[in-house]
């Protein structure tokens, strides 16, 4: 009898994953050479599973800003802002974020996960009602568990279902709080925010949108799906992360609502954790400036997403519903997905294996993400590799893809 007996199912799954090569959950990179390339077991691989959408992790300005601040302020703050105080960088980044989103207030959290945890759990108290999309990220589910509100799921991306569920509350007291995401991280589909904003207005609810995967990616100015859908004025709280398009780590929330700053002493995941090191704050600030100065970054990642999506769609793979920088290939079952993933790594393409219950509809997915730094040649290499493996495993018809696969076979891993 062990305290770990409860994890027997997980133990068995991990043992299965480890058979026949690399365990997809334990990939170890020897090094990361750029936003698009790394080394695994001494072998070069192209990175198609990093959510590093704008490819800013090696941006010279971001690195320089971080190094400078590392020397100036040291390695860490060693405590929360409530206890150890706010550094100039924290405050100026919050101003920069508020200005970027055109909102009055901003709060910086130590991770994107904690931004959801802090905002949602503090806002939704006893007697309040949280309505979350069924395909919400784990951080939203965990925020619900930390909150004492009633938690109701609505059908994924279904505004009518949301309205029907809110109406079932009838006259019950308490705030109605809707939580949705800009781009959903598993299938890469966007939320129908116009319709959801209509429900919000009609029901007097509050609306929180998590733009973790859409900040810097969608919208003419990179403000995400809220901007793209033209509903920014309807959204009460935008949540996001620094660990994807901004290439670092941390999270944030912005809002126009008065009282927002009370969350600094009401949100436990903000209060009881160390604040971001000043060096990270500096790289985030520099990356946000890059987004503001260079709208072509967003355009490039969107174009790259379309190139990968349509390339794989043409090849006959079953994909998520929309061409976005997250491109998910649906696999018939878990074992096929695992084998496919291992073959792909051997082909020099790294992407993410996503399995239930972390996926919607119990799907087994090969989840890839492109970034603005991928070249056409690199994307075509990935398409070719995926097609070769798909053909070898009998998942796509060889005849239908004769031309692209033939071309693909001639491609070598693009030069460094």
């Amino acid at each position, binding site marked *: 009898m062990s305290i770990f007996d409860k994890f027997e199912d997980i133990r068995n799954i991990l043992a299965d994953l480890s058979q026949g090569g690399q365990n997809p959950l334990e990939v170890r990179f020897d090094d990361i050479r750029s936003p698009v390339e790394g080394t695994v077991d001494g072998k070069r691989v192209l990175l198609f599973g990093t959510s590093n959408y704008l490819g800013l992790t090696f941006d010279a300005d971001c690195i320089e800003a971080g190094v400078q601040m590392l020397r100036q302020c040291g390695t860490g703050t060693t405590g929360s802002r409530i206890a150890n105080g706010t550094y100039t960088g924290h405050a100026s980044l919050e101003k920069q974020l508020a200005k970027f989103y055109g909102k009055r207030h901003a709060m910086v959290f130590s991770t994107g996960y904690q931004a959801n945890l802090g905002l949602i759990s503090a806002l939704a108290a006893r007697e309040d009602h949280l309505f979350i999309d*069924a395909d919400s990220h784990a951080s939203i589910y965990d925020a*619900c*568990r930390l909150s004492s*509100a*009633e*938690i*109701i*799921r609505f*059908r994924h991306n279904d505004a009518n279902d949301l309205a029907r*569920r809110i109406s*079932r*509350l*009838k006259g019950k007291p308490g705030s109605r709080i809707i939580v949705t995401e800009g781009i959903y991280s598993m299938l890469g589909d966007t939320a129908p925010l116009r319709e959801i904003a209509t429900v919000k207005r009609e029901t007097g609810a509050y609306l929180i949108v998590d733009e973790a995967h859409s900040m810097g990616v969608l919208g003419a100015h990179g403000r995400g799906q809220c901007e793209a859908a033209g509903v920014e004025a309807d959204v009460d709280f935008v949540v996001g992360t620094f660990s994807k398009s901004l290439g670092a780590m941390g999270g944030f929330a912005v809002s126009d609502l008065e009282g927002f700053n009370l969350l600094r002493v009401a949100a436990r995941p903000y209060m009881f954790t160390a604040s971001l090191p000043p060096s990270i704050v500096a790289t985030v600030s520099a990356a946000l400036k890059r987004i503001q100065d260079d709208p072509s970054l967003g355009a490039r990642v969107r174009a790259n997403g379309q190139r990968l999506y349509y390339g794989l769609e043409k090849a006959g793979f079953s994909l998520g519903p929309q061409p976005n920088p997250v491109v998910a290939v649906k696999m018939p079952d878990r074992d096929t997905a695992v084998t496919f993933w291992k073959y792909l790594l051997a082909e020099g393409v790294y992407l993410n294996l996503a399995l*239930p*219950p972390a996926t*919607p509809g*119990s799907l087994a997915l090969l989840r890839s993400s492109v970034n603005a730094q991928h070249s056409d040649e690199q994307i075509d290499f990935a398409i070719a590799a995926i097609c070769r493996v798909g053909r070898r495993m009998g998942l796509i018809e060889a005849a239908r893809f004769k031309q692209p696969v033939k071309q693909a076979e001639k491609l070598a891993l693009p030069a460094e």
Partner: protein
Amino acid sequence: MFRDGGYGILAQVKETVGAQIIEVLSKVIPSGIPISDGTRIARDLGLDSVAVMDFVMELEERFDILIPLDQIADVETVRDLTRAVEILVKDAA
């Protein structure tokens, strides 16, 4: 009386809440697995956390109620769920 969201009124469907829960549950698991009041929903039927929540969503439609996730945290068996749904149906009437 309660409506059941698209399936007709109570008089036209099964006699008890428990029977209806078992009917909905039988649609989301492989056929042939026996289900009774004492069946543990997740453990005995092999449903993962998302599958359980999806099943609960189906029950919300069937009974035209809201079943808050925090209220089903303590539900283990079909019997537990039946009791919880009976209360929610009564409250919603």
